[in-house]
């Protein structure tokens, strides 16, 4: 089968039986790979609600048809499971080299079942798959664990102490990159699984190698010459947007009580570049090279990403960039999600400030946070409570109105009261408070483009479009940063031109057209190779009859299937909401529009999605997507 390694490995940690999961060609064509393929596997594995930290839960690791090919930014892989933080489906996507090595070993994915009695890790070298003792690795940080695992040129995926101790937002680390969100590390820890190491020497056969290489060369060239992916991200990294977020009131500050931070210049990407940057680097096959190398504790380490700069910086009113760099490094070493860590600490600081929970944590003071972080990783003292995340803390101490989470997952760095579409995206995202799975509308609402963030007009349709688009891009296996090249360069280079300003004003009025196209994707049975390079790359890789319409439909199919899993896990429509701080409190008293007007968008969102008034996908819509027989 072209584009795929063909095998999906099944490892049962309880019985130690290792075999293969059979997947038809039709299923591959429908679900492609990555998170949507993982959703199909998880949906079929259970026929009931499953507890995250139970033997029944499974971990599904998947790569994609573009992984380990010449497609740019295509080394991504996905890990999905039921989240201990939200109780819902969580999928988390990572760069680095693990996905590449997994594919070269001859696998499109690994399903990990059951629970080992002993501490173990899985070693995969082509067909040779072994469950090995991790006794000597247990208790070690992620960096040391990867070193002890041996050979450099192998893909590694490991947990740290946080995962072992079932911290609800424990991450899984590969090199210095994180499967960050939703506590997947705790599911590894519960299964007594320290990690995986993988490599192989299989080649991937492509449907039309010549056309594929020609197309991906051109795609890479376009990324290199685009002002965002060719210039700004390599020079400034993902933190490049922090300054614009401050000016547009989009930067979470003091537990989401404000959208701007007076000391933003002390923590922005420009300052990191001047004062801390050693060099930039990136994933295998990526021409963007957005990652930063900086120094912490006298050694060269990964620099903080935008989310970390904001959640450990402005969100805590912390203007000390070196402290953010250090905390970021320690989070990676312990295996902790920096977003939920920063958000949980911000919430605890506000509880302390309001006298609701006297815990000694204060805004502007991060002097004890390294100590607190270690306590969280070890679940000691106050760390044991903080290890549960924001929602659990609010259930115990109160403050639900300013406990900034959706469905249990803490929000990312974007304050949505200045970006209605981003607010709707957070509220409806299958992962919970995730900017990417939410559609990342904020890129249109003030960062890359300047579409009016205050209006709700057209936002439901655009949010759905981008949710499905990004779902499909993830399924294909490329980094979401590659989607920036879809934005015409002129819009970035000349934001003040009459034409660009006119288009920015016009975009919300295109909502009905976007909604129509969403529901009639057959209209888009074409391949515009430069504008949207993904479908054609998938077509040349796999031989599938792929075009823009089918590609977006695959994204929509995945989004709906994830929704079905969440409903089976107990999700109700009234959970498609935001904390009251964001919907009832004005961000700026002088601006009556500075709150998320969710009530104006949510019904329209359901209607365009083809979901009923309770947010349940209708039978008609599921049938249209070819998943009518997926019943909950």
């Amino acid at each position: 089968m072209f584009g795929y390694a063909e095998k999906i490995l099944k490892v049962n940690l309880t019985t130690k039986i290792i075999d293969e999961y059979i997947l038809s060609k039709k299923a591959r064509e429908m679900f492609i790979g990555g998170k949507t393929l993982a959703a199909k596997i998880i949906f079929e594995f259970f026929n009931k609600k499953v507890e995250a930290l139970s033997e029944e839960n499974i971990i599904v690791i998947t790569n994609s048809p573009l992984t380990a090919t010449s497609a740019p930014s295509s080394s991504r892989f996905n890990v999905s499971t039921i989240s201990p933080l939200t109780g819902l489906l969580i999928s988390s996507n990572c760069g680095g080299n693990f996905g590449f090595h997994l594919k070269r070993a001859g696998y499109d994915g690994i399903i990990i079942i059951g629970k080992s009695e002993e501490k173990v890790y899985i070693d995969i070298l082509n067909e040779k798959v072994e469950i090995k003792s991790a006794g000597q690795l247990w208790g070690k940080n992620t960096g040391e664990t990867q070193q002890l695992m041996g050979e450099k040129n192998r893909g590694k995926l490991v947990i740290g102490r946080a995962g072992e101790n079932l911290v609800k937002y424990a991450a899984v680390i590969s090199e210095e990159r994180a499967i960050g969100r939703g506590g997947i590390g705790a599911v590894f820890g519960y299964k007594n699984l320290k990690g995986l190491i993988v490599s192989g020497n299989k080649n991937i056969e492509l449907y039309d190698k010549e056309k594929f290489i020609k197309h991906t060369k051109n795609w890479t060239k376009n990324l290199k010459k685009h002002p965002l992916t060719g210039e700004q991200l390599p020079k400034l990294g993902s933190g490049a947007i922090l300054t614009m977020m401050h000016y547009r009131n989009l930067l979470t500050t003091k537990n989401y009580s404000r959208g701007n931070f007076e000391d933003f210049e002390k923590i922005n990407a420009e300052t990191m570049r001047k004062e801390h940057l050693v060099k930039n680097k990136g994933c295998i096959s990526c021409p963007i090279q957005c990652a930063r190398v900086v120094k912490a504790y006298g050694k060269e380490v990964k620099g903080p990403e935008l989310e970390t700069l904001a959640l450990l910086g402005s969100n805590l009113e912390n203007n000390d960039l070196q402290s953010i760099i250090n905390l970021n490094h320690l989070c990676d070493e312990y295996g902790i999600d920096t977003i939920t860590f920063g958000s949980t600490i911000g919430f605890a600081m506000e509880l302390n400030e309001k006298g609701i929970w006297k815990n000694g944590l204060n805004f502007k003071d991060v002097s004890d946070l390294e100590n607190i972080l270690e306590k969280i990783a070890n679940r000691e003292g106050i760390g044991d409570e903080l290890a549960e995340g924001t929602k659990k803390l609010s259930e115990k101490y109160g403050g639900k109105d300013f406990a900034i989470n959706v469905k249990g997952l803490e929000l990312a760095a974007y304050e949505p009261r200045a970006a209605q579409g981003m607010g709707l995206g957070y509220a409806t995202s299958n992962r919970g408070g995730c900017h990417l799975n939410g559609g990342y509308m904020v890129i249109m609402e003030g960062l890359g483009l300047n579409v009016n963030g205050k209006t709700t007009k057209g936002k439901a349709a655009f949010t759905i479009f981008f949710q499905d688009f990004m779902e499909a891009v993830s399924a294909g296996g490329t980094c979401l940063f590659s989607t920036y090249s879809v934005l015409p360069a002129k819009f970035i280079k000349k934001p003040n031109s009459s034409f660009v300003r006119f288009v920015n004003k016009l975009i919300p009025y295109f909502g009905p057209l976007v909604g129509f196209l969403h529901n009639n994707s057959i209209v888009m049975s074409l391949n515009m190779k430069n504008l949207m390079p993904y479908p054609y790359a998938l077509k040349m890789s796999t031989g599938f009859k792929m075009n823009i319409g089918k590609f977006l439909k695959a994204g929509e199919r995945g989004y709906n299937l994830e929704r079905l899993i969440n409903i089976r896990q107990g999700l109700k429509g009234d959970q498609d909401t935001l904390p009251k701080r964001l919907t009832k409190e004005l961000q700026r008293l002088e601006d009556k529009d500075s709150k998320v007007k969710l009530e104006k968008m949510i019904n329209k969102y359901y209607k365009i999605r083809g979901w009923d008034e309770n947010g349940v996908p209708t039978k008609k819509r599921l049938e249209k997507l070819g998943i009518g027989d997926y019943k909950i």
Partner: protein
Amino acid sequence: MIKVKFFGMINVKNNISQLEMNEGTVKEVIKQIIEKNPEIKAKELKEAVIFVNKKNITGNKRFSLKLKDKDEISFLTPSGGG
């Protein structure tokens, strides 16, 4: 004096963060910047996203806006990341 700040690729390309200029319209301030820092291109500043006292100014009349003592003008480039 007017405080002038540079961010994004303007900051990176010209290795400049902040300057102080005399009062005048936005157009006049840009002219002063170019005169004192010829490495900066007028086009870069004219095409930038401009904030005056943290308020975004757009449209063709933005260059005639008068800046007073202690005002702050910031030049940014549209951005992506996250």
